[in-house]
């Protein structure tokens, strides 16, 4: 019953009142509609209906058995019944057949329904009478539909067939499209959705029907809920989900199957050929480098440790707390490392007490150190030395002695005092690090600058001066030596071959107590004027001051050779290493020739200084002073000779004469300090040193001597000012 209603419902797919160019299509719809009404009417009278059914039953049987041949037969025999034949043999009838599986016997219920259905069609047929039907269109359409159904049942894909234009209206096309979709889904329920769609599209294409045509509205039926249930059942029966799951599983399996190769390829890309071997080699290289570096540091630490142990044998508490000692201790423990001329914080930096740690190391390594020394030296001297060390160590425990000395607060060790900075208990080693770095820098600079090369000042304000030579001479005469140096440097920069400029520059440096620069300037002057007697004498004097005996003799001998009056006395051939006594003898001859020549006596005085015959030197300078009593440099030479012959008191008197003549004579001021210091009068010497460095802050010798005197005078509080060259503090503390 439900099937019949569903079938009849499809008949209403066309909208009511729609015009149609095909009268038979319209007829079919009308018949379906009236068929429903007829059924309602006939159901009420029971007996009248049974009589026509019996006559039709015989006809239905052969139709079911051989549908095609039956239709052919009826068409030939009953021309007027073509309409009925079309209706009975149409898609509806075959569609009903599709619900009965082939090969299975007919059921009673289907037969009953079939008979009723056939009765409806046959009863309505005669009602319309003999309509005139166009045979070819119906026949063609029927054939196409039968082929479609047959192919569906047989499982063979439907082949497109060329069909002539049937002149179907849009409503007819829509009706066929909808019914085809529904019937195809019934027939091909076990096929994928795509297959069903393909078959339907092929059929519609053959009939020239657009498969993409959209319905004008939702499909209407007397039982919408039935339609919904049907769709749901179709969805449930569909094997899409399972298919999708299977596809996913297959894809995943494929991916997994590829994993081994992919993993191997990834490994190769990451590590490359022999990747592991390369990595191992790199690791080994790093280990070797680290080991090498550690070995170097360990060697340095070992040396520092040995030094620290040596220094630790001094039990004076001042030394134990001195900055130098702690500096060495830190080096021995690896807290400070010297690399590339720099003191760096070692990786083994520690904050534990240095005394305890050093004590531990000392106790642990003392014997091994002594044994190592014996092993390295392998000599009797080494054995004795090691024994002495052991004896010193055994004389008293380091710890006990150190504590005792600390308690007693001894203060008589000058060395410890100097390096502890005078502040007892000061434990910082940083200043020592700074000093060490400064020493390294200074050493590097010294090695860079070769000797005998003049070093010009920076930012000379006299460069560009119109007449720096005249300015330099004026400044020299006024006694402003440092300013004169700048002006004269500007002159020789402007005129490098000016011998007089270089000579005066050298004299100025000598008076400013800088023999290094004096020698360099005089060498340039000597190049410009090789026979200048003043230059040769100045060079002789400066080299004497630098304790360079050979060079001094050479220059003084050339003085004699180049002298217009005494040149004949000297041997004609030049001698590179003249013999001191011979030169002195020659100058004595010259002195006898010209007793009134002060220069000869001056040179003799310098020569006697070289030979350390100070009494004769003093006599020579005194003779020269009788001839030139206003020569302040001569007074200084006399004083220096007296000082070097340990007559410091007399020297001071001579220096005073020189300073009276030239108050800014820096060399004389420095010499005064030296004479007081050599007599042990350190307090007095400090004042003169401060005066000298105040006039010429570049007088390095004076700065060094000042430091020594401060230390000896127990003025350690001023050593810092001396190291930083703080002139204001020093001048205020030590006025003159």
């Amino acid at each position, binding site marked *: 019953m439900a099937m019949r209603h569903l079938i009849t419902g499809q008949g209403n797919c066309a909208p009511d009142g729609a015009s149609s160019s095909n009268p038979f299509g319209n007829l079919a719809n009308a018949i379906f509609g009236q068929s429903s009404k007829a059924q309602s009417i006939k159901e009420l009278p029971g007996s009248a209906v049974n009589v026509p059914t019996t006559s039709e039953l015989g006809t239905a049987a052969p139709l079911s058995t051989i549908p095609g041949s039956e239709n052919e037969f009826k068409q030939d025999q009953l021309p007027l019944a073509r309409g009925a034949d079309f209706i009975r043999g149409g898609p509806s009838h075959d569609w009903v057949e599709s619900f009965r599986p082939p090969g299975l016997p007919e059921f009673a219920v289907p037969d009953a329904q079939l008979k009723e259905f056939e009765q409806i069609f046959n009863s309505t047929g005669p009602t319309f009478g003999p309509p005139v039907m166009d045979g070819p269109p119906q026949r063609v359409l029927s054939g196409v539909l039968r082929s479609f159904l047959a192919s569906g049942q047989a499982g063979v894909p439907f082949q497109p067939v060329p069909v002539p234009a049937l002149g179907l209206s849009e409503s007819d096309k829509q009706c066929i499209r909808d019914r085809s979709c529904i019937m195809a889904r019934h027939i091909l329920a076990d096929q994928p959705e795509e297959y069903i769609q393909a078959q339907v599209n092929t059929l519609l294409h053959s009939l020239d029907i657009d498969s993409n045509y959209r319905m004008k509205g939702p499909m209407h039926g007397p039982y919408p809920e039935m339609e919904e249930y049907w769709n749901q059942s179709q969805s449930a029966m569909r094997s899409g989900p399972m298919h999708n799951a299977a596809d996913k599983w297959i894809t995943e399996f494929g991916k997994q199957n590829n994993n081994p190769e992919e993993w191997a390829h990834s490994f190769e890309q990451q590590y490359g050929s022999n990747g592991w071997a390369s990595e191992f080699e790199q690791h080994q290289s790093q280990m070797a480098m680290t080991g090498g570096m550690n070995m170097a540091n360990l060697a340095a630490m070992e040396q520092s440790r040995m030094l620290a142990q040596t220094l630790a044998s*001094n039990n004076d508490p001042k030394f134990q707390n001195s900055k130098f000692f702690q500096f060495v201790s830190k080096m021995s423990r690896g807290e400070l490392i010297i690399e590339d001329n720099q003191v760096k914080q070692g990786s083994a930096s520690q904050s534990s007490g240095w005394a305890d740690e050093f004590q531990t190391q000392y106790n642990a390594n003392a014997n091994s150190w002594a044994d190592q020394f014996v092993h390295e030296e392998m000599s009797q001297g080494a054995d004795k030395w090691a024994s002495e060390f052991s004896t010193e160590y055994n004389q008293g425990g380091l710890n006990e002695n150190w504590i005792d000395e600390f308690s007693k607060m001894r203060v008589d060790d000058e060395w410890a005092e100097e390096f502890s900075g005078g502040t007892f208990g000061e434990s910082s080693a940083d200043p020592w690090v700074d000093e060490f770095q400064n020493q390294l820098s200074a050493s590097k600079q010294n090695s860079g600058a070769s000797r005998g090369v003049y070093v010009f000042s920076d930012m000379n304000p006299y460069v560009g001066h119109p007449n720096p030579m005249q300015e330099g001479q004026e400044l020299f005469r006024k006694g402003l030596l440092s300013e004169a140096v700048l002006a004269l440097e500007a002159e020789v920069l402007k005129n490098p071959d000016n011998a007089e400029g270089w000579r005066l520059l050298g004299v100025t440096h000598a008076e400013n107590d800088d023999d290094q620069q004096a020698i360099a300037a005089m060498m340039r002057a000597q190049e410009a004027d090789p026979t200048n007697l003043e230059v040769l004498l100045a060079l002789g004097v400066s080299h004497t001051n630098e304790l360079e005996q050979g060079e001094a003799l050479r220059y003084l001998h050339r003085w004699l050779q180049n002298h217009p009056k005494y040149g004949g006395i000297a041997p004609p051939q030049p001698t590179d290493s003249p013999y001191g006594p011979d030169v002195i003898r020659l100058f004595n001859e010259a002195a006898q020739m010209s007793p009134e020549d002060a220069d000869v006596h001056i040179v003799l005085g310098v020569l006697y200084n070289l030979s350390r015959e100070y009494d004769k030197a003093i006599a020579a300078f005194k003779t020269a002073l009788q001839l030139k009593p206003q020569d302040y440099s001569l007074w200084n030479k006399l004083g220096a000779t007296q000082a070097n012959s340990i007559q410091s008191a007399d020297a001071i008197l001579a220096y005073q004469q020189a300073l009276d003549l030239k108050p800014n004579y820096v060399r004389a001021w*420095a010499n005064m300090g*030296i004479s007081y210091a050599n007599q042990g009068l350190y307090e007095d010497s400090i004042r003169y040193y401060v005066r000298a460095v105040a006039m010429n802050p570049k007088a390095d010798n004076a700065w060094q001597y000042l430091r020594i005197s401060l230390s000896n005078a127990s003025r350690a509080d001023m050593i810092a000012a001396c190291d930083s060259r703080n002139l204001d503090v020093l001048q205020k503390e030590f006025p003159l």
Partner: protein
Amino acid sequence: MEGSNLKSAALLEQLRVHLASGAGKELVEKIGFVYQLNISPKKLAFDEEVFVVDLKKGVVSKGPYEGKPDATFSFTDDDFLAISSGKLNPQMAFIMGKLKIKGSISAAQKFTPDIFPKPSKL
């Protein structure tokens, strides 16, 4: 010191005169050690000349010490002058390898620039 071309010899001669004149009496009282100095012209431990500064007796002599000195120092000529003039710190010289020391440590620590009189400049 006669017969030596070292610059240090001039300074040591001055020290000899200094000690002989009685001005160095304080040094003998303050230090009282015997130092042997091995001074080489340019390179350490090559062509060394040996001097002895005996601050027990207050004499300076040339040649090795008969007996055992309290401390023995090795320098080059220039380094010795730098140390005696205060230009170079003895401890720094030791660390930098410019100075080698053997013997008593306490004696070595007393070896300071104070010992040497400063030369005056002509």
